[in-house]
């Protein structure tokens, strides 16, 4: 096992990365980690043929969507089930063989000699789990560290992790009917590139930025799928205190699962609460229309042990971030979509009857708590709807600066940086936030500037697209580049979706991003130097100092 794909990976003088202990910090055991690597390898094999078939005008939608789903299962805190990966690996080989035939038949029909492909394209999966585990040793991300060096391994890793994030967002769109051939083509092209085990740093850097460009498209498609399905986000109040009655908690990111559960629990007297990154659900008109979408419970993912144990009903986990369920709620947590934990019931069919049965059997909340709400829903539609007012406030000097403080939350102590940053932001500055990082400060009252709330919650991490649209619109209004706006981006990362968002921002040429709480372990000093030179990426310092520096630079 070797894994350094997330922020909490083991850091030591002997080298960063989880593996030597036989289990990752996330709880992923060595076998699961190895099989995830092998699944990624197998998926590269699909991509090798899918890219070439596509060039000949042939596509295979089943294989395309499998690539998304398969990569999504390998993200941090998504799926920990060894048997699941054994199945997925065998399925990947079946998809690859089908796409291979598609490609070779298309080539033959067009009188072209089909490429003879090696590596993942020609690999045969072993029949047993133990034999797959042996095969997996040649699929680990740092397998040729000694020959190609840590910079190349790190650049490949960043690109792969970015692609994992892209696939996850694309899968969220896919389940809502949002697809785009350009996305599949981009993912397959870049997986094919990685299948060749590239060693050219410049080409890898370019590949990373291309992955960022693909993610821009993915976030656009996902934005369209969300708004198309549930309406554009609107400012709305989300209750954050419980009310009496039976209850179900929905965590993760998947709005389709939430919608289906709301539909299946209609008129049952069961209250549905969101958790973590599901909070923005309260801003979508067609979700808010369900009167039993009662409120938001708890905070970010890393607090789920205490929060899930205390919740008086079942929990549905629709995507990342899942951590090992404790005995206190293990029998009443359910997974859906790409998520899984051995011994936790998985619901594949969107039929949430088992969840509802548990909700009916459990006591629920016995009384109303004092009403307390927060405001959500400042996506691009809402903010750009008052663009004139915002522009006027900037021009008039009422708004001095914008801080985008967002991204993932996590358990690392250094993440207090973001709380301090938000709290110390001067009164004439607006804080845009997104992702679960907002839980560090979003219940505080930041007041307003001429009626414009100083804290604007844009939504989930993927609503970075909204943030980019807002920034682009402001840049247009001020006739300048985004980099010239009075805007600082203070991004907290944890896992691979955040890598995809970071690459998207870099692909737009956005400079001066503060990235923390620590820099990714896969970024070597050489690569960091490049990112600093090219993009002025800044590691976190002291919140007050970083804040002062950002304001001074803008002045």
């Amino acid at each position, binding site marked *: 096992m070797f894994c350094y794909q997330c922020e909490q990976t083991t850091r030591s003088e002997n080298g960063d990365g989880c593996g030597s202990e036989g*289990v990752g910090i996330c709880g992923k055991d060595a076998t699961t980690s190895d099989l995830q690597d092998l699944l990624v390898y197998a998926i590269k094999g699909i991509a090798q043929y899918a890219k070439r078939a596509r060039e000949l005008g042939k596509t295979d939608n089943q294989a395309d969507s499998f690539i998304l789903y398969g990569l999504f299962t390998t993200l941090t805190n998504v799926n920990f089930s060894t*048997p699941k990966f054994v199945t997925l690996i065998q399925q990947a080989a079946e998809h690859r063989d089908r796409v291979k035939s598609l490609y070779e038949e298309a080539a033959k029909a067009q009188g072209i000699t089909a490429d003879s492909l090696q590596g993942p394209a020609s690999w045969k999966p072993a029949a047993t789990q133990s034999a797959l585990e042996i095969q997996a040793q040649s699929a680990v991300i740092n397998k040729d560290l000694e020959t190609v060096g840590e910079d190349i391994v790190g650049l490949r890793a960043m690109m792969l992790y970015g692609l994992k994030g892209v696939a996850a967002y694309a899968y969220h769109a896919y389940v809502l009917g949002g697809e785009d051939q350009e996305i599949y083509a981009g993912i397959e092209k870049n997986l094919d590139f990685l299948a060749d085990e590239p060693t050219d740093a410049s080409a890898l850097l370019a590949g990373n930025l291309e992955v960022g460009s693909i993610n821009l498209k993915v976030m656009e498609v996902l934005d369209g799928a969300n708004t198309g399905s549930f309406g554009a986000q609107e400012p709305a109040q989300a209750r954050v205190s419980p009310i009496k009655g039976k209850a179900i908690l929905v965590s993760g990111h998947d709005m389709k699962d939430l919608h289906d559960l709301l539909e299946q629990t209609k008129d049952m007297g069961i209250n549905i609460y969101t958790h973590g990154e599901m909070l923005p659900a309260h801003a979508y008109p067609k979700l808010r229309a369900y009167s039993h979408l009662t409120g938001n419970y708890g905070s970010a993912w890393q607090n789920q042990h205490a929060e899930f144990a205390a919740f008086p009903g079942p929990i549905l986990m629709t995507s990342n971030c899942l951590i090992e369920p404790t005995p206190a709620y293990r*029998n009443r947590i359910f997974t859906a979509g790409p998520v899984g934990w051995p011994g936790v019931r998985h619901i594949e069919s969107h039929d949430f009857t088992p969840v509802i049965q548990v909700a009916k*059997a*459990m006591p629920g909340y016995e009384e109303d708590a004092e009403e307390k709400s927060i405001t959500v829903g400042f996506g691009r539609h809402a903010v750009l709807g008052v663009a004139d007012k915002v522009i006027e406030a900037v021009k008039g000097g009422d708004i001095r600066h914008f801080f985008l403080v967002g991204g993932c939350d996590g358990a690392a102590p250094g993440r207090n940086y973001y709380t301090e940053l938000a709290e110390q932001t001067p009164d004439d500055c607006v804080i845009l936030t997104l992702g679960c990082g907002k839980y560090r400060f979003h219940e505080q009252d930041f007041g307003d500037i001429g009626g414009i709330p100083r804290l604007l919650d844009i939504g989930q991490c993927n609503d970075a697209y909204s943030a980019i649209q807002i920034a682009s619109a402001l840049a247009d209004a001020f006739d300048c580049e985004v980099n010239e706006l009075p805007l600082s981006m203070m991004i907290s990362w944890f896992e691979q979706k955040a890598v995809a968002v970071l690459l998207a921002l870099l692909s737009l040429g956005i400079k001066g991003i503060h990235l923390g709480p620590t820099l990714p372990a896969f970024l070597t000093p050489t690569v960091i130097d490049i990112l600093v030179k090219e993009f002025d990426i800044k590691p976190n310092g002291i919140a007050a100092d970083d804040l002062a520096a950002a304001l001074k630079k803008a002045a």
Partner: protein
Amino acid sequence: MSHKITISTRDNHQFEFYCNDKQNVQDAAEAANLYPPFGCKSGVCGACLGTCKTGNYQLDSYSDEVLSADAAKNGDVLLCCAIPESDLQITLPYDAECIQQTLSAPRDAEIISIEKIAERTFKVVLQLQDDPEVGLAFDFEPGQFVELEIPNLDLMRAYSLSNTPNWEGRLEFLIRLQPNGKFSNFLQQTAIGQHILVHAPSGGFVINKQSANPRCFIAGGTGLSPFLSILSRMAEWAENHPTHLFLGVNNEAEILCQQELTMLQQSLPHLTVEICVWKPEDNWKGFIGTPVDAFKAHLEKNGSATDVYLCGPSILVEVSTQAALEAGVNKEHIYSERFVSS
């Protein structure tokens, strides 16, 4: 003198506690609020079996039916009999979820059904009474057992659950009557509506959830009980492991739960069921012999990359284990639970 005991579970969780040299490891664990599966606590039932990897210890008296001389020589220990002489590192053949950190109080339950389903074999259904804290819920892992207590008779017996965890408080058991057995007598004389106590679930005979290997289940008679629970869970959760059940009985009259098994096969397309009758009548069309014979033939045909689960009389467990080892099945993939006389 106090020694550090480290126990490691199948899913790589570790627990540490201290044990003095006059205490057994099970008692020391419980003093540290850790309850590894246990039963008799007197070296007879084998529920607390583990393997000592490092350290020295003495074993108090125990039944060689559950711990053979060879196994003891290779480091297998019963936690309830192991007295440490140094720090110990012990591995346990089940996941951390089987180690409880609190021991919940016995629950009151009503007998709502006693149905004869085969020769000398009854299906007993209990309905738990509402609990102020957890309602009707009763959490256990398929494959685990509970101790049933009849307070007035000072009688307690352990039985595996044959249904799956549920939120309605329904508990099902397959119970074979023993000649002159106290619990057997109680069952034959009791009436529907009688109340008994159900102790907290225990036992490490649960599925290795992180293994994708095919599964072989070998059951002797009511040793089918935990497998019914496991298979029902697999059906509910749509698990697709290839699974082969070998059920052994002495004669056709002892065949049990055929209808349930047929229904499970409809939900589990990768489940095969071989009913093995040792001494059938002339018109028996199925397998003749022991489940071990059928299991051996299966291994010969399908190879040894499989997880093996055994439940039944000691002799069945011993012979099946030997057959599995000889066929090349990894020792760490053989899990067993044996009937013990009480």
